[in-house]
Each structure stands twice: as structure tokens, then as C-alpha cells.
């Protein structure tokens, strides 16, 4: 079932969520990467980040609390090794990016602009512990708008920007309108919610625990965007763990879903969901 998402034609409405597919190699052991509508990379920063010391993830009823510290090899290493490998495996690649400030966002986007094979750029504005991690804290909607327009300005036409936002139903309507005004071709709802590890360290909450909040965000975002007449898609994320979850989100106005932490429970979740949603298998 091919779908249009943020102006791209994708083979499936099921995408791999950022930070949940490893480098791609680990996931490729269970299904070809071409199975997914797109593979969203873990958030890549200009400079390499070692990530936090353990334990960085704990389980909570129906969810995970995580503070991994956005580990990644940095943009240069990513472009030199991981991106070409993903492309040879047949993946559609959405590069998730994170940066310290607008200047660094511009720099990262400029370098991505000349990298072949980048289908889209997802700006990670849902980092729940941004201040601690030293990345742009998109607390207010205008931060979201500024980051989106900064990245968009540096990219060639045809490479859309997706804005990943936290699953905060309180501010979702105003935030998605700002993202759309700034030129985001899609908003991804919803990233982790601010939470804490048992020892009090700031962290994010994901998983089925936030699914109802994310679903509310999807519905509210779609109506807010429609009311504003904005040409901006909604991609659902957050607690999607089955074809049924995916259908609920699609019924509420999402054009696609991202499967994330469910992959930690079963690495075949996204592939099975994609198969169930394709007309050949789902009938």
C-alpha cells in the first residue's frame, strides 16, 4: 500500500521511529529495511555523543523511562558509513537531527543538503531532557517554528522537514500550527513525555503508557491543521505496537505511523504491522 507522506511516496504507512532501530543493521536481521515506509535514524548531532552511563532505561507499567543521552557517532561518521549502508539495503531514510542551537541546526542541515539519499529530515523537538543534554529546548511553540524554518531554509526543494513533537495534548494545537507555518511538511506526534528515572534524573516516558495521549494529540493536531487550512501531514508515534493501534491512529487523521519502543519488545512488530496494513495481506 503506497502512501503519500510529507510529499513523498512511501511503500508503506509504517515507519521505524527514531532511536528505536539501532543503526539499521540490527533491525535488518528480522526483515529487509525496504519493508518499512521509511527508516528514521536515531537523532544525529553535529558532534559525536557518547551517551549516558547506565542504567539508562527502566521499565514502568506499560512503558519505558529512558535517558540514553542521544548517543550517536556524529554527522560526519553517520554520512560516511551508516547512511550509505542503509541506502544499499533499500531503506528510505529519514534523518533525525538534534542540535544545540539554531546555528548548529543550520550547519547540520547544510551538510545534509549535499548528502545523496536523504529522503526527509526529522527535527527532534521532543527531547524531554533537552536542557540537561545541551540541545535546543523547544519548550515554547516559537522554538519549534524557528528550528523548522532554520532547517528548511538550508535543504533543497523536495527534501521535506518533519517536526517531531512531544505527546503534550495541552499545547499540541498551537504547536502544530506554528510548525506548519514554518514550513513543516508533517508533524510527528508524539515523542516522549518528560519523566524521571527512579533516582530522579530527567528522562522521557514512552511506550503503550503514552498511547492514549499520543492518539489525542493526533486527533487534535489534525483538526487544528484543518482549521488553519495548513498543508501539513500528521504522523502518529508513541505506543504503536500492533496493526490495531496503527489503524486507530490512521482513523484519527494520521497518514502514517512510526513504530518505536514496541520494537524493543519484539523486533518484528513494525514489519508485521506493515504486512497487516498492506492490502494483499490485510484482506
Amino acid at each position, binding site marked *: 500500500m503506497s502512501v503519500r507522506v510529507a510529499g513523498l511516496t512511501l511503500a508503506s504507512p509504517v515507519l521505524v521511529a527514531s532511536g528505536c532501530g539501532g543503526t539499521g543493521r540490527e533491525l535488518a536481521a528480522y526483515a529487509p529495511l525496504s519493508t518499512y515506509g521509511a527508516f528514521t535514524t536515531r537523532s544525529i548531532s553535529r558532534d559525536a555523543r557518547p551517551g549516558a552511563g547506565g542504567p539508562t532505561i527502566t*521499565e514502568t507499567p506499560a512503558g519505558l523511562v529512558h535517558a540514553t543521552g542521544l548517543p550517536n557517532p556524529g554527522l560526519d561518521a553517520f554520512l560516511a558509513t551508516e547512511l550509505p549502508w542503509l541506502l544499499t539495503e533499500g531503506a528510505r531514510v529519514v534523518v533525525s537531527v538534534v542540535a544545540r542551537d539554531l546555528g548548529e541546526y543550520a550547519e547540520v542541515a547544510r551538510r545534509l543538503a549535499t548528502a545523496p539519499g536523504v529522503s526527509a529530515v526529522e527535527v527532534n523537538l521532543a527531547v524531554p531532557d533537552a536542557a540537561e543534554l545541551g540541545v535546543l529546548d523547544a519548550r515554547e511553540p516559537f522554538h519549534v517554528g524557528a528550528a523548522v524554518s532554520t532547517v528548511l531554509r538550508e535543504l533543497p526543494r523536495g527534501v521535506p522537514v518533519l517536526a517531531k513533537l512531544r505527546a503534550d495534548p495541552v499545547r499540541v494545537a498551537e504547536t502544530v500550527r506554528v510548525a506548519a507555518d514554518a514550513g513543516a511538511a508533517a508533524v510527528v506526534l508524539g515523542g516522549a513525555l518528560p519523566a524521571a528515572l527512579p533516582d530522579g534524573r530527567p528522562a522521557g516516558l514512552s511506550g503503550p503508557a503514552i498511547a492514549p495521549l499520543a492518539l489525542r494529540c493526533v486527533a487534535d493536531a489534525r483538526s487544528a491543521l484543518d482549521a488553519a487550512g495548513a498543508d501539513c501531514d500528521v504522523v502518529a508515534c508513541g505506543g504503536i505496537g500492533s496493526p490495531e493501534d496503527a489503524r486507530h491512529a490512521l482513523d484519527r487523521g494520521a497518514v502514517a505511523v512510526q513504530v518505536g519502543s514496541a520494537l*524493543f519488545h519484539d523486533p518484528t512488530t513494525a514489519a508485521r504491522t506493515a504486512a497487516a496494513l498492506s492490502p494483499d495481506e490485510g484482506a
Partner: protein
Amino acid sequence: MSPVHVTAEVLASKRIGAFQHVTLVAPGVGERFRPGAFVAVSVGTGGYHLARRAFWIHQVRPLGGYAATVTLVVQPRGEGTRWLAGRQRGDRVEVTGPLGGRPFALPKEPVPVLLVGEGYGAAPLFALAERLRERDCPVNLVLGAPDEAHLLSALEARRTARAVTIVTGDGSVGARGSVADVLPEALRRSGAAVVYAAGPATTLHAAALAAEEHGAWSQVALEQRTTCGTGLCLGCPVPVVGEDGVARTARACTDGPVVRGDRVRWDDLARGASA
């Protein structure tokens, strides 16, 4: 060693001492097994437990008409381990395996080796001992536990190894004390060129140190908490020193679980620090 995700069936579940030996029919897992590999089990039902629990593959053998059944040694203590230990014959369990980018590395020459295990953590050493014996490596074993009930397969150990040292915290079998107490002597007597260790981090650290003092290599099987076990979640950081001498963070599940003992930054590991 590409892993598979399968719905396994419990073929047998047997209480032995403090452990539950759970045998699974998990097509494709046992066939790809190498000593030091593990499986990740999705515990509970309904996605309430998102994090998975890792278990060493203890034994792979033909049983009940199946070519390669997989036996795990479970010490029931928390929700996940109690759930798995409570599965009955015929129950279904979601497992992924065999996992671990690096299982135990075998020596090229038939050198004497020392295997060190503690509690259920000794589980991966038995299959390793067999592979080492096939390569004509004289196998020496140190097995430790707090008490007899937590001592894994001491009888079987005597069949596979040339010399076995047993040590328990309460002295119920073997010497009284800890694995670390008996390591220097075991190393001296065995003349081991390689030390293989599996168990809690403190034991692994002791084994790595003792090996270094003795001039031997060490291969330690790490047991970091693994949310996914498959390399996807980036939640199992291990502070290491790379081949180039640069400090970095490895993933216990895919860059391990077996690493060279002299590569781990043990103090940082204990503190939960990263590069």
C-alpha cells in the same frame, strides 16, 4: 549468527535447586547457537512489560524429536524471572535469539583454560567447556555460589573439566568464600592462558584482574540490563577502551556480551559513567 524472533513452546520445566531449568522448542535459535549467546524473552502478556529479560543459553540438544532444543537456567527473583519460571509444558513464549554480537572467542592453540562462573551466571560455560575440549584445551573450572542450592550443575562440571574448584559463601559445598578468593591459586595450578568468566560484574572484574596478574587473556560475559537485547534501544552502555586506546561506550548486547576483560573500564561501569 543472525538471530530470529520466534514463538517458542515450553517443552519441559524442571526445578533444580534454586533454579528452574526451562527447555524451549525455539526453531532456528539452537541451530545458530555459539557459547556465550543469549536469548531475550518478552515476559508477561499485553505489553505491560515492555523491557525484555535476557537469559544465557545453557544447553542446546536434541530432545523429544526436536533437533536443537534450548535450555535456560532461570533464577526466579523478580517479576520477569518468576513469570518465565512459572511457564508450564505447552505454554508459548516469545523469544529472540541467539543474541550477542560476540560470543566467547576460542583459542587457536590447545592451551589450558580456566572457566569461572557464579550462580546461574555459570550457565554459558558448560557448552563452552565442550567446545574447548574438542579443541584439546585442558579445561579447569571454578564454580561459585552463595550456597549449594545456587550452585549450577556441579556434577556435570566434574564430567567436562579436568579440575573443578567449588566455592560457596556458606561453605555448604567446597571451600567457604568467594570466587575471587580462589582465583589466584586456580590460575597458578591450571597454568591457564585464557580465563573465561560469567557472573556478576564484581566476579568478572576479579577474574579480569587475576588474569592480568597471571599474564593470561580474559574473556568476560557481561550481564548489563538489556531492555531489548537486540541492539535497538541503546540502553545497555558499557564503558570500554577501544583497540586504539580511546575510551568509548559499547553496547553490551551487540558489541558483547563477551568482551576482553582488560578492555572494560570497571570503575566507570560500577559508577554508571560513559565515555
